[in-house]
């Protein structure tokens, strides 16, 4: 059964491909991002970053900078205005346990690139120039930024991060059974530190309004998080801080937490009583938030027929010295495969770096790469086809959650449809057996998985006398298509054309919604918008029934349809009234409703909810020179209902492209002598360019899910998970070389 939203039971827009409603604004340059709003007398801040990774600031000389005409102030730890002093006040809504970093707090250096001064000037160029004149003397200590060296001191984080499931207790006896297994594999896997690098660098514009209140434009994935942070750090009443962010130039997790440019912009604005904008440079995008490195060991013990008997997955992941950042790395192995003896561990080791942050499918990208590469190795060790092996160990229940069944899991269909489209049956499993000219051809497959979540979320709907509808809430559209799907849902629910619906997002004056992340926005905001629109529909219906000679006088709400701007008796369009006439007759200028939606507790008590995928990759590798061309990807996705196949496909394409980067290119290279990422720019940190990307086919398999009324499970992350493993497995198939450390660069192929 397909879920429906419109009261007629027939969706006009939902489920159909629709162009982005924010498209015209984005292709004309009219869409404004956080660092593009201006204000009278706007000042510009330029950040001075620490050259060392650990130690203290011995002296800062800002005299030369202050002497530059146009410089308003140089803020450092020595002259910064007071802000809240308890850690608690700096903990934003999604902060991990610990003491959040405070910019310009004292003379201590916690990591390379830490902000040590903010130069505030009348124009951007003056600020940037004066920032080069600030002289900082350090007393440097030797930093520890080598995870392998620090792994000996790894620990089980005493405080767990909210929303992150720690590894389940082991079951069976993985170690003993591994030792006696007929087929045994145990290897280490890593992927390099990756930085999010959304195309828009982080930026905040703090506008001081005439009444002393603040309007803040911040690059954040949920404005309520920045509002709460600013209120508690600066001791402000929430209603004096309006945070807006109508568009985000990507974020991928880097915009979940308020970053230091927001703190600095508000600090300067309050200190100087003027509006201030702080935009980070591209290089400064390496000074916070990254996908952490994890040292992983996967052990698989199996029968000769491929039946898993023992599974262990251990990870040591880096965090900072001041926060216990955590993500789910190892649990996926237990969720994906049926096995009677499983041991999963996850520990942290502290390094002198910023705190890592969620980056598209945090933990899953890391852990699933390891388990899905290991499963490919097991396929070769047992002589099974990699898909067969996965089906042999398939599970319909989540062993990490007391064997609760999955709410839905169409992974088998992903394998079947993906394999069909890819032509998997033609594969000769022998490594190095397929070639075209000088190129070795490799085909690889892997599974992807991500949690399907829903969060408490509000939304409002306002139907105006002109028949136009506005809906919205405070969450952000990172480019995910939220504007578009909410418009579709609202239009269907009230039977309006999409052109008559305006969706507003990213404004703390709108009903509160969580940060956009975790692939939960469609379910959460979508349901809330639908409920608000339903409420408006009921209000309109009640008014319609009381109209003089109302054709709906004796009809129940369940028996009417909303279509073409009218309320009609279902099946009899001649009996109905236009919404604008309803409002006019009632003498109201609008109908308004605010609704809340949250996770279905009954469903969650009974089921575990995940999205799944099967990813097929083809690589062509020059046998002699090791150059990899990724020629084909088929990604088959099971993610419940697809609201908009056009934007949904793009979400998956984006995930796949990021997965390609992860597999073949992306690596922030740490010089451990000085604790500094050295390739901190887009010239030397390689993300895929157009020439790297060839055919990507996206398949959405049928899957019915009931976790929320929309039947959606979220698409933001699933496209990236497992993609790197499929590529690494294809590289093995092509070359016979198993590369367990990403990215797979030429040195590893020919080395």
């Amino acid at each position, binding site marked *: 059964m397909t879920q429906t939203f419109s009261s007629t039971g027939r969706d006009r827009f939902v489920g159909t491909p629709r162009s982005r409603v924010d498209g015209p604004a984005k292709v004309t340059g009219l869409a404004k991002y956080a660092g593009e709003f201006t204000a009278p007398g706007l000042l510009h801040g330029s950040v001075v970053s620490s050259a060392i990774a650990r130690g203290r600031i011995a002296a800062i000389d800002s005299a030369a900078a202050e002497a530059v005409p146009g410089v308003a102030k140089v803020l450092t730890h020595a002259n910064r205005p007071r802000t809240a002093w308890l850690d608690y006040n700096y903990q934003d809504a999604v902060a991990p346990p610990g003491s959040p970093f405070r910019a310009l707090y004292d003379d201590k250096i916690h990591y390379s690139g830490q902000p040590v001064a903010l130069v505030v000037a009348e124009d951007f*160029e003056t600020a940037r120039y004066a920032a*080069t004149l600030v002289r900082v003397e350090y007393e440097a200590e030797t930093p520890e930024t080598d995870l392998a060296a620090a792994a000996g001191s790894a620990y089980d984080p005493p405080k767990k991060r909210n929303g992150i499931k720690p590894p389940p207790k082991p079951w069976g006896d993985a170690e003993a059974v591994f030792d006696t297994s007929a087929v045994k594999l145990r290897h280490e896997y890593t992927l390099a530190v990756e930085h999010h690098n959304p195309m828009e660098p982080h930026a905040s514009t703090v506008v001081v309004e005439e009444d002393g209140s603040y309007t803040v434009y911040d690059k954040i994935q949920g404005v309520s998080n920045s509002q709460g942070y600013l209120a508690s750090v600066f001791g402000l009443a929430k209603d004096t801080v309006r945070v807006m962010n109508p568009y985000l130039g990507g974020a991928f997790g880097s915009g979940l937490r308020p970053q230091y440019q927001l703190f600095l912009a508000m600090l300067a604005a309050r200190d100087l009583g003027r509006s201030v904008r702080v935009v980070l440079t591209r290089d400064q995008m390496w000074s916070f938030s990254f996908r952490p490195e994890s040292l992983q060991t996967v052990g698989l013990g199996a029968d000769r027929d491929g039946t898993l008997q023992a599974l262990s997955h251990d990870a040591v992941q880096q965090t900072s010295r001041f926060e216990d950042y955590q993500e789910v790395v190892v649990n996926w192995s237990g969720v994906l495969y049926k096995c009677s003896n499983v041991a999963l561990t996850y520990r942290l080791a502290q390094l002198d770096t910023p705190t890592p942050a969620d980056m598209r499918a945090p933990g899953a990208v890391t852990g699933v790469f390891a388990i899905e590469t290991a499963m490919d190795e097991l396929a070769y060790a047992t002589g099974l086809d990699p898909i067969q092996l996965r089906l042999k160990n398939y599970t319909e229940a989540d062993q990490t959650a007391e064997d609760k069944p999955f709410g839905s899991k169409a992974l088998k269909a992903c394998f079947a449809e993906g394999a069909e489209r890819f032509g998997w049956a033609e594969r000769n499993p022998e490594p190095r057996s397929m070639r075209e000219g000088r190129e070795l051809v490799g085909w690889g497959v892997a599974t992807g998985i991500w949690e399907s979540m829903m969060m408490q979320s509000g939304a409002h709907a306002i139907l105006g006398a002109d028949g136009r509808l506005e809906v919205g809430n405070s969450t952000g559209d990172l480019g995910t298509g939220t504007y578009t799907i909410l418009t579709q849902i609202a239009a269907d629910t009230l039977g309006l054309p999409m052109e008559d619906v305006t969706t507003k997002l990213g404004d703390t004056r709108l009903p509160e919604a969580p940060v956009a992340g975790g692939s939960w926005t469609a379910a959460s905001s979508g349901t809330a918008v639908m409920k608000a629109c339903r409420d408006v529909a009921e209000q309109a219906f009640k008014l319609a029934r009381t109209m003089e000679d109302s054709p709906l006088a004796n009809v129940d709400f369940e028996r009417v349809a909303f279509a073409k701007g009218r309320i009609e008796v279902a099946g009899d369009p001649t009996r109905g009234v236009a919404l604008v006439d309803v409002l006019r007759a009632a003498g109201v200028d609008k109908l308004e409703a605010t609704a809340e939606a949250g996770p279905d507790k009954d469903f969650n008590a009974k089921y575990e909810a995940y999205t799944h995928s099967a990813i097929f990759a083809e690589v062509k590798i020059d046998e002699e*020179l090791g150059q990899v061309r990724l020629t084909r990807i088929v990604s088959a996705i099971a993610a419940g209902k697809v609201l908009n196949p056009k934007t949904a496909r793009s979400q998956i394409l984006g995930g796949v492209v990021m997965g390609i980067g992860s597999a073949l290119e992306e690596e922030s*290279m740490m010089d451990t002598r000085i604790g500094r990422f*050295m390739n901190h720019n887009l*010239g030397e940190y390689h993300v895929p*360019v*157009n020439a790297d990307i060839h055919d990507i086919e996206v398949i959405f398999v049928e899957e019915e899910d009931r976790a929320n009324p929309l039947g959606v499970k979220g698409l933001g992350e699933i496209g990236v998970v497992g993609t790197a493993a499929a590529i690494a497995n294809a590289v093995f198939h092509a070359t016979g070389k198993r590369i367990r450390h990403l990215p797979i660069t030429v040195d590893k192929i020919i080395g």
Partner: protein
Amino acid sequence: MNRFEYVRAGTVAEAVQAFAGAEGSRFIAGGTNLIDLMKYDVERPGRLVDITRLPLDRIEERDGGLRLGALATNAAVAYDARVQSRYPLLANAILAGASAQLRNAASTGGNLLQRTRCYYFYDTATPCNKREPGSGCSAIGGIARIHAIFGTSAHCIATHPSDMCVALAALEAVVQVSGPKGERSIPIADFHRLPGNTPEQDTNLKPGEIVVAVDLPARDFGSHYTYLKLRDRLSYAFALVSVAAGLELDGDQVKTARLALGGVAHKPWRNRKAEALLQGKPANRESFQAAADLIVAEAKTQGGPQGNAFKVELARRAIVRGLEQAAAGTPQSISDKRIQ
């Protein structure tokens, strides 16, 4: 970006004079590297002499070859019909570098003068002898996977990042310069330097000299050539190793071989002994391997997982493949990334 004076020059003489008139002058044309470095506070010119209005953008016939004006953009050169038909090696090398936008702005002279992409050179938080003579080389013992394997010194292991110059080296182009003491010609092989004790000097240009043209000799290697570039992604990345190869064949015998490597040294790297070795030899894999072995025998690498030892084998194989492509008359395509 620091504060600087600006002079717009109308003639070469005016440019040379303006350059001499202030401390720390720099000529600016396309600006694609200089402005980049100024934003990183690596370059802090006292005066910028804008030479974009000088009449130096022509591409002209000269002595059976071509004269490329210093201000001809990389795109103008690469897409010039004469360059495409007679010097496809040069066209391909240029098109293998940077992006369309950068090639539209970058000039021929500027390409010659672009500076290394060493991470440490670019980062003022770290010591670098090229940026601050005497401060030390951070790349040695650091992250050196993009660094040089030939002609390094204890003071610098940086590479020259140009693709165009690698082709110019193989073509034995001649750089025409003008300066306070008049005009002179510098063979491309003598234009760039090895780092030695003075890595801060990239080239043998004397202070105040301006590149006015690059002369391509009549021998164009237009039939048997390739520009093969290996990098960390398939476009818009600097070479780990690149090979510019030009051959003149007599039947299946090598009459003349020209071979220059990019991404492996402080200048486009040529090895005359290897070229001589090929002369008179059959144009086959065996000969090419012998030449490659001779070249890489001189390699000196930086160790460790972040080092560049892999470049030796990569270079060896790339040389062989490049020579094979040249001999077979199947030059590497720019847009089809399959390596022929």
